[in-house]
């Protein structure tokens, strides 16, 4: 653990930006004294120097401790570009299952092909690509009758192509493809279980193996040997859940991949890293449909061709153009990424056979994409995309300290720093109540909010809408929902009471449907999104 008498920098090196924070012991505990971020290409030392100077300006008594800022300890983590994998399988179904496992465990899938005459050239070109690091070949275990012929053909193709390379890539043989091991003696072979079709995000052994393999690849490529930021986030989430004795969920939207973690006090319940849920997928450059996935959440009025080019510029330089419409575009891209993270987020059934529990008491959001948005707009982006009934507290890892904290090797150190920094590092966005089943009519229901300081407020629920109630940071309130027809908040009842915490964004009450239904026509869709989002953007240039 770092010397707590001293100050330390936390540095999170992302693929698009670098975030640093200065933590120092003040009044007997570690406090977050300042944080800043910059594009990833800029040198780090000036960022740290500026941070130390800023802190000294505001807290002159720390001048002595920060005079030699270069000598301060640093807790660092780094997020790298995910490794690349080519997937080949005897059938389309097998290829799809393997690709899903790879895409949700931190791999960039450069191609996913079934063995057919029409794919021979593409597969062989992929296998001969000088940049190929890993190829995965998979089939059912044992191969099904349908797979046997194409698998034998595929193996001939693979052996022929790899035999022409001077350097063999790593070969993952999954399921029935392990039979080919003796034909691939020159390769670095890894044996894996067969892929399960759209398995849950915890119990699939293939995903677990691929996660470990991705970690080995990313670590091997990084000369700095800094701990991997995405794994560190998962570790920090588990530490936070243990510390709070609550279920904690974290979503991190990054420029090259996004992460989702759910942890309870016993440990990690679910974890995915998805390259196709990156803030700005590189595929948007050549594929209008990928750019349009972002624009489906955009409220900016402009011609589609110009907007697609703005999305592409976000891929080229994610840090640029962050003000004005650029901030709205970023949040639209973050929504598209979050909805990809939600797609395929499947947890296992509970030990007693009950349906999976997707709930979280606290949802933490992280990533540079959210740095430019006001708190209520971030809250709405979360409930727009990660839709589930219930109440939860929302927080923002604004200084991106969770990944560096997760990079600490010792659980006691992590917990100590989290205890000290909890209030400083996690900006309370507020709470959200997502209630379905509230019907239009004479008796729509109401929500009564009674804060711990005794203040009380009551509003009438508006079905199919988003309502924002003022609930400042530091306050806790009892929210009572009363409906004549009953509302669904994970359980159905006419009268429901939940405890909610205040935050910069207040309390968001969402009575819209799950999943969210949006109009197909772009103009109507944009108008509806704008009606929900416009009141939440401060700073007002429209």
């Amino acid at each position, binding site marked *: 653990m770092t010397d707590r008498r001293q100050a330390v920098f936390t540095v999170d090196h992302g693929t698009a930006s670098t975030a640093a924070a200065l933590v120092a012991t003040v009044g007997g505990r570690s406090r977050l004294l300042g944080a*800043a971020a*910059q*594009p990833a*290409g*800029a040198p780090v030392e*000036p*960022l740290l*120097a*500026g941070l130390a*100077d*800023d802190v000294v*300006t505001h807290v002159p008594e720390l001048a002595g401790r920060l005079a030699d800022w270069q000598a301060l300890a640093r807790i660092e983590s780094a997020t790298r570009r995910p490794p690349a994998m080519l997937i080949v399988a005897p059938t389309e179904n097998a290829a799809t299952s393997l690709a899903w496992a790879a895409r949700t465990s931190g791999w960039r899938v450069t191609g996913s092909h079934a063995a057919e*005459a029409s794919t*021979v*050239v593409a597969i*062989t*070109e992929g296998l*001969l*690509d*000088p940049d190929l690091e890993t190829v995965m070949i998979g089939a059912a275990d044992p191969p099904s009758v349908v797979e046997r*012929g194409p698998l*034998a*053909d595929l193996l*001939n*193709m693979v052996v*022929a*192509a790899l*035999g*022409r*390379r*001077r350097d063999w890539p790593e070969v993952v043989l999954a399921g029935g493809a392990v039979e080919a091991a003796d034909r691939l003696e020159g390769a670095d072979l890894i044996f894996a279980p067969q892929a399960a079709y759209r398995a849950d995000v915890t119990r699939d052994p293939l995903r677990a193996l691929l996660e470990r393999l991705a970690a080995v690849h990313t670590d091997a490529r990084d000369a700095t040997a800094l701990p991997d930021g995405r794994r560190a986030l998962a570790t920090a989430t588990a530490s936070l859940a243990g510390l709070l004795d609550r279920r904690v969920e974290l979503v991190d939207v990054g420029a090259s991949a996004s992460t989702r973690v759910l942890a309870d006090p016993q440990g990690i319940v679910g974890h995915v890293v998805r390259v196709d849920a990156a803030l700005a997928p590189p595929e948007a*450059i*050549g594929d*209008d449909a990928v*750019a349009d996935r972002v624009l489906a959440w955009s409220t900016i009025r402009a011609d589609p*061709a*110009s907007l*697609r*080019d*703005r999305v*592409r*510029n976000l891929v*080229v*330089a994610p*840090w*640029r*153009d*962050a*003000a*004005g*419409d*650029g*901030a*709205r575009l970023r949040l639209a891209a973050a929504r598209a990424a979050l909805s990809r993270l939600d797609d395929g987020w499947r947890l296992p059934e509970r030990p007693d056979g009950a349906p999976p529990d997707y709930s979280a008491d606290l949802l933490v959001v992280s990533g540079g994409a959210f740095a*430019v948005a*006001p708190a209520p707009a971030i809250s709405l982006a979360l409930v727009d995309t990660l839709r589930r009934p219930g109440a939860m507290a929302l927080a923002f890892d604004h200084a991106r300290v969770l990944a560096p904290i997760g990079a600490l090797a010792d659980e006691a150190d992590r917990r100590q720093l989290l205890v000290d920094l909890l209030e400083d590092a996690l900006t309370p966005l507020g709470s959200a109540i997502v209630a379905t089943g509230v019907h239009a009519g004479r008796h729509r229901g109401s929500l009564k909010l009674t804060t711990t300081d005794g203040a009380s407020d009551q509003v009438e629920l508006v079905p199919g809408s988003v309502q924002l109630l003022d609930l400042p940071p530091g306050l806790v309130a009892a929210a009572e929902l009363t409906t004549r027809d009953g509302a669904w908040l994970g359980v159905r009842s006419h009268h429901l009471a939940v405890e909610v915490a205040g935050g910069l964004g207040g309390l968001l009450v969402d009575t819209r449907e799950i999943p969210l239904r949006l109009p197909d026509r772009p103009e109507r869709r944009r108008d509806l999104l704008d009606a929900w989002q416009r009141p939440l*953007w401060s*700073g*007002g*240039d429209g």
Partner: protein
Amino acid sequence: MTMLADTLDAPVVAAASAIVEPTVRIRLGLGDRPLVTAGVHVRAGDPIAERLRDGGMAETRLGGIQEPEPGMLLEAGAPLGGKRRRVASPGRGRTIYVTPGGTLRSVVGRHQETVGAPAAGVVLDVQATAIVLRTDGIGYAGTLMTGDPTVGRLMVGVARPDDELPVAAIDVTGAGAIVVAGARIDVEALTRARAMGVRGVVVGGVVGRDLRSFAASEARQRAAIHASPAFALLVLDGFGKRPIPPGVWAALIEAEGREVGIAADPAMILLDAATAIAPIGRDRVRAAAGELTGRTGRLIEIVGRRRLPAGVMAVVGRVAFEAGGGQPPEERLVALADLERLAT
């Protein structure tokens, strides 16, 4: 204001700078034939590979003859083997593999074209699907490139880096040249350039829609019976209208009239080593985003965190912009993230 007294240390990303002797790869298809070996020095435009046009997969029943090696070169009609039943090559190309049922799968085509070196340099490696070349000069990386690596004399078609090249300005004088087209080029100008024999276009930005229309036009061009010379579009800075970054612009002006190349992997303009650029002051910056995109000036002060449109908080700097784009000299506050430092 922050205590960062020295704007030279401001956390601003560096603009693309010259890469000395850059290594580039010339990608090869399955049926292509390298014409060079590792260690050979090539001049710009020298043939380095033969590209198979309109290649397709062919299947040949081997009928029990000895299986050819994967990757073996094939000549049209040449015997593959067999005593009682002579098995002939399905065309000019290369073998891929033999199926378990004894069918040879190959990639063959009827037409070939020559691939030239995009710059002078030494062939470092010849791989199954790429030739690796360490070039002799310097290179500036672009955002993307579409087309084939090419070479030609450099012709600067615009007066300023933020100008646009009008369609009417492209004529036969551009034949064989790589044309610098300013901040943006549309699909009509690209198509005309192609028709006039221009070898390549270097541009600051391109509209995505035009890029795809051009790529479709290129695909049709390839499908034509007659081979046409390689043509490349190199985009230096991004999408939409984007002035050519000042450092690259200065190098392009310096290299005008000389032979230059465009590489695809990585996307890069390759210039002569003699292209000398005057040193640039470290406080010189360029606005790379927002309404001031393309304007250059001096970063004179880090102002600190300020509220920007839409309520966004960001660290801003005061920049003394020079006159440009019809605007007089002026001082403006700009988010540091939207700036690029010209010196590296």
